[in-house]
């Protein structure tokens, strides 16, 4: 098994694992962790593509690697925004749920 195949296995598994967690976990922070796992899996696929493209004296193709760095930054920004909303939600209502029905029934909270 070559390192590349191994990395491909890890990448694909991370995407699968993350997908499972993203759909099934009810807690938004757990969903966020799962999303980050998918993200890492995707970046690994980019990394494999970059490594395969080794040519012209480079050990990697710089184009996909540059894109991974852009991707990591964007994923972090997304996590920060999500965390801010989650924390605000818990502070406003004392609970964290994504179920829209939960807000409409028990006179779901006029804030302030």
């Amino acid at each position, binding site marked *: 098994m070559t390192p590349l195949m191994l990395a491909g296995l890890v990448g694909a598994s991370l995407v699968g694992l993350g997908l499972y967690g993203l759909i099934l976990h009810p807690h938004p922070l757990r969903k966020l962790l799962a*999303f980050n796992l998918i993200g890492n899996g*995707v970046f690994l696929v980019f990394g494999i593509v970059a490594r395969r493209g080794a040519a012209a004296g480079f050990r990697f193709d710089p184009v996909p690697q540059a894109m991974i760095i*852009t991707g990591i930054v964007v994923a972090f920004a997304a996590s920060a925004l999500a965390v801010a*909303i989650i924390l605000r939600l818990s502070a406003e209502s004392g609970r964290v749920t*994504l179920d*829209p029905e939960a807000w409409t029934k028990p006179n779901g909270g006029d804030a302030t």
Partner: protein
Amino acid sequence: MIAELGTTTPDGYLLVLAILLPLVGIILSFILGGRSPERVALYSTPFGFALACAIAFHVGQAGKPIVYTIGGLPPPLGIALRADGISAVMLIAAAVIVTAAAFYARAKFATPHGVRESRSSLTFWIMLQAIWAALTIIFVGGDLFNLYVALELLTFAAVPLVCIDGRPETLAAALRYLLFALFGSISYLLGVALFYGAYGTMDIWLLAQRVQATPVVWTAAALMTVGLLAKTALFPLHLWLPPAHANAPAAASAVLSGLVVKGSFFLTLRLWFYVLPALPTDKIAAVLGWLGSAAIIAGSIIALRQARLKLLIAYSTVAQIGYLFLVFPLATGTQSWGAIGWSAGLMQLLAHAFAKAAMFFSAGLLAEALGHDQIAKLGGAARVLPLTFLTIALGGLSLMGLPPSGGFSAKWLMLQASIASGQWLWTLPILAGSLLAAGYVYRILAPALSDGQISLESAPKRSYEAIALALAMIAIALGFAPQTFFDFLEIGRPWRLGNHD
């Protein structure tokens, strides 16, 4: 190759200017703060509109796409921007709706007196410009990774608008929207990675020449499509849309429903018609058509059962998005009916954008005037708010597909295309959707037109009603679009360029 799409055309700089205008606006708004964001946004809209018109003019005059390679570095290494017929039309539509939203939102998102800067005002004006910038890139982008960054820009701009009033239910709606959108972008990005791994480029035009029907390409296309569908809220991935669009302030809802979901749909079009014209796509087109049909039926039926006006309009968006996806079975292939299906899809895209923005604007005015938006308590409202209900009626006309309106043209052309292509089965959801739309529009108008005593909390300003009415009139006017308009939409369609022979 008829047109060379890898080199800059003389008028290509217009594309960069159209993108940079809102970007500069964001930066200025952020640094200056205070009351400036509002002014920056309002003053830049006419320029943006002018740029969009200039682009359309040049595209029409050249009869082929205009191109700009950024930094003078052509693909595969560099990023190209290209505007064809549909880009130009969408740019104008976006400029009009963003301008309308900006003027409509002036009162609600003005910085209050006695405050140097307010939270909702700064957020709204920056995010509005960001949505505009992201959409502009999406409409003219020629590089799949660049388009990914634009998609993320769109997400980061749209989500805070949903929860701008800070109530828990809007925060939950925004969070759900964010998670769906993030899933969508990451799935899209995975597809892009595979495309690069297979063909060493992300340029749409170069890919179109290289792509072959291999398992890798199918996997990449499937991943990108699922991601884009999640962002477009196509049934059954629509769950995030109604709470998000219904809870946002009206000015934001109009932009979200009228434009933002169209951004990811536009990329779905780009993917299947521009990147993958070489693939045998009949089966995929059928699947997308079926999902679209399910969306029409399910969205309309749920819309019928809503108690709140804004939720009804939001579910109507779910249904109308369904129509858009009928373009896939109706416009694939090179036969003449393909062109009819293509025109129909684009007409639906435009008509819905204007009609839905007008309806959300009206719903917002109505909620402010009455203090609620419960449909059951609208008795007699049409007499006190005639202009607002005229707008809702005109918008509804287009949603139902009654002549004369853009919605009618779209649905009529879809029927023509499905019969001409022998796919008569698609006529069923088209007609059923129209009937159901008639049902939910009737549900709004019937109580409003009935007798009843209703008191206004405050009368809406005439100018705001006029903005909504103007958009509804555009949706109607689209029904009178001449043949040259449809010819314009054909500019730059891949098979006309000769890639597909």
